[in-house]
């Protein structure tokens, strides 16, 4: 895979088709963990790690197990089981190696299993017929796009804490409107291509 192809893929996954702000994948943790920037960074990197590894494992399962046996309809079930197992392993690893991050992420760590972005990237890899290297790369790059979006959003939300929106908008609604404006900004990247 050439550097140009990788760069084009990166531009697409991180900016032009950002997973959170354009493709709507990974919204729940995006809205849930973005109150503080350091948790957001930790969450983003954990999700990137799971997305990269998840892409690799699901590609292997699909290519060597599902396709040869003609079991493509089992993709959803097998992918989600692979991801669940992976998140369990990551959780155990973090509890031993990085206990501070583990306690900061709290309940949101097992919730990476239900993160649409992780399953979404696995399904998109299959849909686009990516090979192993492209799948892994796309998984990591999409995760980086997610991290970018969640970190940007958390910096804005930290400032929002000090503002006074109308009472009905307090909490989630103003966060959603802010996310919408961020998504509008990212619309400027659409069509960004490396020829």
């Amino acid at each position, binding site marked *: 895979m050439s550097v140009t192809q990788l760069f084009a893929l990166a531009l697409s996954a991180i900016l032009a*088709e950002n997973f959170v702000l354009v493709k709507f994948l990974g919204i729940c943790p995006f809205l849930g963990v973005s109150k503080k920037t350091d948790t957001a960074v930790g969450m983003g990197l954990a999700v990137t790690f799971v997305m990269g590894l998840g892409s690799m494992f699901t590609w292997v399962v699909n290519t060597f197990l599902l396709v040869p046996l003609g079991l493509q309809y089992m993709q959803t079930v097998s992918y989600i089981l692979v991801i669940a197992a992976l998140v369990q392993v990551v959780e155990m690893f973090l509890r031993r190696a990085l206990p501070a991050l583990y306690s900061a992420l709290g309940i949101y760590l097992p919730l990476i299993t239900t993160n649409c972005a992780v399953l979404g990237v696995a399904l998109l890899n299959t849909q686009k017929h990516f090979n192993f290297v492209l799948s892994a790369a796309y998984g990591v790059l999409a995760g980086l796009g997610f991290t970018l979006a969640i970190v940007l959003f958390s910096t804005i939300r930290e400032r929002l804490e000090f503002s006074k929106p109308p009472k009905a908008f307090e909490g989630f609604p103003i966060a959603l409107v802010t996310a919408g404006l961020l998504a509008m900004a990212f619309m400027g990247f659409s069509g960004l291509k490396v020829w």
Partner: protein
Amino acid sequence: MSGKKPPLRDSLRFYGKLVLILFGITAVSALLMALVNGLTQDRIASLAEDRRQAAMSAVMPGENVIFSQVPFDPGTVLDMQVAYEGGILRGYCVQLTADGFGGPITLMVGVDGGSKVTGVKILDHNETAGVGTRVDNSAYLSAYRGRSAGSGADAVSGATVTSRAVERGVDAALEAVARFEREGGMSVEEGEV
């Protein structure tokens, strides 16, 4: 100090039970899914085939046109089929992708025996709603009919990238057909590949 570790046998039995239950649930689910898959797969396959036939018929005019696949260079070209009507070669239908504004656009291009376009149909795209999608209308696409390789085409104002992508796709289809005919092509008398 209480609590000695449970014997290995009990732990194994405990984890064994967990694995067995999970396996049992997965097995029953897999059976159920296999059943539904068996019931639906023929219909899904025939629907996909119908869609393809409809797309090809849309770009290749004729009453009883029969299509059959010919070898092609995989890459941007996804499929190439030769079209016969009553044993006479009508032309070719090429399904290919071209890079548009928001990603690859899938086109179906009909080319007749004289390397002129018979029709263009957009099958799939990711273009900007209301802007790039303006290219996907029959008035604009029918302007491609009768066109041969190399002649320019108008673009839809405000959707230049998408229009150029369609133009590139049509040119690539004409090129693919020309290459096929150079390398032997189909003889008009025979009705088979």
